[in-house]
């Protein structure tokens, strides 16, 4: 077996080896049990005292949502103002200007919702001030928001008949002080010793071997890149993201970045089992997610390792696979693995350019985001999965002619309405956006924007269509990667994807929280012989079927017009 494949397998196994103990640790943190990071407790107390928060005050699900939405609104306004004003703020060694209103609108939402779609380039469109005080800050708090929301759902599943679901601020602050911050610190130190820059010196200039004058963008990159992955954010320092040789200098940093982004999403699945004392249930969920991951990964690896048939026809050898948009130090096998991981878990950082990937790979990346719950983003991945669990329980209940129950609570019309709406929201916002943008490309091609619709697409035909489909899919899934050839730095894309991102973030948090809160309030029915067991492989198959039918098939027509058509035309 060649070293590129062993590298991929090693990376995944290392991820699991870290994620399982991490899951146990996370469960302990939120159960309030003793952990080895308890020396951070004085910091927690300082934060709560300064903010005037009593972390012991129990909240119901509506109060949790109010707290979550209030603080997110504060961040949105703060981020928007900073981005507009960055040209006049300190820490701007490269002298970059403020962002336009539409770009700032898009960027502020994008980082707030853990999406990190970037319609600017880090080297010229942001300053050291905004990279730190907007982006890095939002990297931490948006990931912590997702984790805190998930813990509320965990709590609601645990207790028998209650509307007391713990304190949102406590979950949120602990997500940062006990998980994200300490682990980011360790990761950033590894990065710093492997060639990532950490200083505030600004651009450098040198004369190259051949006598060209070259300017090099730099910056305190290591700290940002650590939380960018750990928090499944993905918004990078440089335009080329983790393909950039400073943002990802070697195979070791690449492995650490890959492990860091997948570790928490997998750990949270195991944390569920440890938290509820239902380990088998989390094995079933992990099994479904892993099966889904492999079904996306294997075709992608196959397509990338075989290379581009159009280039093979020119007589060029592709010993390792397709190389357009990829870096030699990672190679096609690792880039294929990264592109699937980053799309299923909503990170959206890239170490190769997805726009140049094979059409089969493009299909799989988009499917990963359309389903958006195979491991999924920090916290929100499981929240999306939760919706599919509810739907699967309901359908299984109907199939056997019993009232559907999940963990001892009846699922009734109200919960089902919420679950169906959330499940259908995702295809709705993606496909409507796609329809509008396609209309503009064809019928309003000359509209006078920064980039005219006729010039949006960097590639002709089916691939151009895929660029638009990818952009809305990535926005709705809060992923943030892109087919970056798309001319998206203009009013149309900034506003439409901004709206899609904000809907795609908060409704899928509100829905599961509401369902969990409503269920927690219902009468508890003890398990009997007629109960549908949620920790069996039969139930796992049901969930998988529901995911395929609802999430994957609703996108099939759009995928057929884009990457699938391109695949069959590429000979």
């Amino acid at each position: 077996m060649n070293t590129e494949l062993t590298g991929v397998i090693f990376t995944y196994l290392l991820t699991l080896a870290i994620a399982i103990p991490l899951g146990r640790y996370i469960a302990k943190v939120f159960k309030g049990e003793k952990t080895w990071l308890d020396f951070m407790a004085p910091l927690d107390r300082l934060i709560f005292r300064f903010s005037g928060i009593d972390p012991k005050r129990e909240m119901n699900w509506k109060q949790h949502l109010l707290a979550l939405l209030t603080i997110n609104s504060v961040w949105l306004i703060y981020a928007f103002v900073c981005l507009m004003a960055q040209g006049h703020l300190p820490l701007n060694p490269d002298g970059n200007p403020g962002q336009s209103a539409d770009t700032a609108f898009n960027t502020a939402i994008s980082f707030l919702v853990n999406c990190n779609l970037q319609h600017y380039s880090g080297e010229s469109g942001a300053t050291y001030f905004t990279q730190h005080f907007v982006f890095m800050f939002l990297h931490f708090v948006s990931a912590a928001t997702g984790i805190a929301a998930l813990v509320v759902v965990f709590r609601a599943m645990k207790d028998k008949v209650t509307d007391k679901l713990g304190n949102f601020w406590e979950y949120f602050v602990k997500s940062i002080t006990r998980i994200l911050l300490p682990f980011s610190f360790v990761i950033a130190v590894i990065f710093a010793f492997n060639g990532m820059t950490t200083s505030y010196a600004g651009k450098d200039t040198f004369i190259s071997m051949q006598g060209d004058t070259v300017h090099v963008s730099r910056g305190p990159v290591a700290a940002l890149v650590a939380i960018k992955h750990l928090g499944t954010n993905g918004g990078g320092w440089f335009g080329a993201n983790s393909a950039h040789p400073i943002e990802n200098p070697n195979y070791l940093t690449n492995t650490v970045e890959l492990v860091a982004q997948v570790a928490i999403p997998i750990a949270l699945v195991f944390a569920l089992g440890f938290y509820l004392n239902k380990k088998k249930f989390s094995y079933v969920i992990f099994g479904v997610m892993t099966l889904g991951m492999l079904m996306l990964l294997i075709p992608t690896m196959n397509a990338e390792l075989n290379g581009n048939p159009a280039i093979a026809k020119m007589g060029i050898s592709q010993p390792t696979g397709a190389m357009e948009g990829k870096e030699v130090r990672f190679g096609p096998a690792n880039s294929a693995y990264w592109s699937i991981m980053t799309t299923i878990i909503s990170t959206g950082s890239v170490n190769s350019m997805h726009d140049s990937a094979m059409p089969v790979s493009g299909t799989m990346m988009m499917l990963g985001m359309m389903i958006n719950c195979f491991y999924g983003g920090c916290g929100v991945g499981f929240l999306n999965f939760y919706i599919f669990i509810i739907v699967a329980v309901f359908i299984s209940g109907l199939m056997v002619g019993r009232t559907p129950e999940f963990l001892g609570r009846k699922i009734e019309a109200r919960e089902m309405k919420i679950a169906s709406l959330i499940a259908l929201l995702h295809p709705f916002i993606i496909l409507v956006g796609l329809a509008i943008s396609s209309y503009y490309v064809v019928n309003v091609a000359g509209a006078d924007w920064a980039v005219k619709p006729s010039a949006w697409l960097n590639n002709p035909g089916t691939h151009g269509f895929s660029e638009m489909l990818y952009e809305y899919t990535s926005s709705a899934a809060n992923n943030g990667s892109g087919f970056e050839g798309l001319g998206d730095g203009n009013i149309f894309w900034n506003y439409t994807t901004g709206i899609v991102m904000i809907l795609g973030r908060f409704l899928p948090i509100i829905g599961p929280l509401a369902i969990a809160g409503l269920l927690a309030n219902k009468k508890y029915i003890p398990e009997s012989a007629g109960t549908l067991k949620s920790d069996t492989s039969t139930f796992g198959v049901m969930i998988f079927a529901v995911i395929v039918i609802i999430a994957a098939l609703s996108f099939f027509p759009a995928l057929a017009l884009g990457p699938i058509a391109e695949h069959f035309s590429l000979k």
Partner: protein
Amino acid sequence: MKTYLLPSIKLTLILIVLTAGIYPLAIAGIGKFTPGKGDGETITYKDRVVGYANIGQKFTKDEYFWGRPSAVDYNAAGSGGSNKGPSNPDYLKQVEGRIDDFMKHNPGVTRSQIPAELVTASGSGLDPDISPAGAKVQVARVAKARGLSVDALNKLVDEHTEQPLLGMFGPAKVNVLKLNVALDELK
């Protein structure tokens, strides 16, 4: 709303200080003790900084080994790939042009000897590396341009081939800048 708004604002302030102030400053402090002191590792030739170890630069002369094509022309003030789709006819024409150019400068090389990375653009536009095969295929040209023996250059390429991580994980590669500096040092 007031129950949540005031704590939200205060919590935001203290977390900004913690996550965007103290944390990156601590990392910057630790960065001072790393090779390159956190500014990035530079390569020096004849007491002059000729580039960054990790940042690819443009080599077009016959007497140097060439790196990969770059969508940003190795302008390290920015970064990016071509974002061309695999079926794009203009893109395929461009690749065809690169092959012709390469064959013109490297007579005697057949198409099947050219590895893909030499005619495709990297993701960052700043890829510092090529594969060992990508270096070997250029040896004859460089040897002729410099009047050196092919054997000496093959040996130089072997010396500058970086093996996979721990010998097991990831691809082998050659850093083009380091190889070219070594080449000039051979004189």
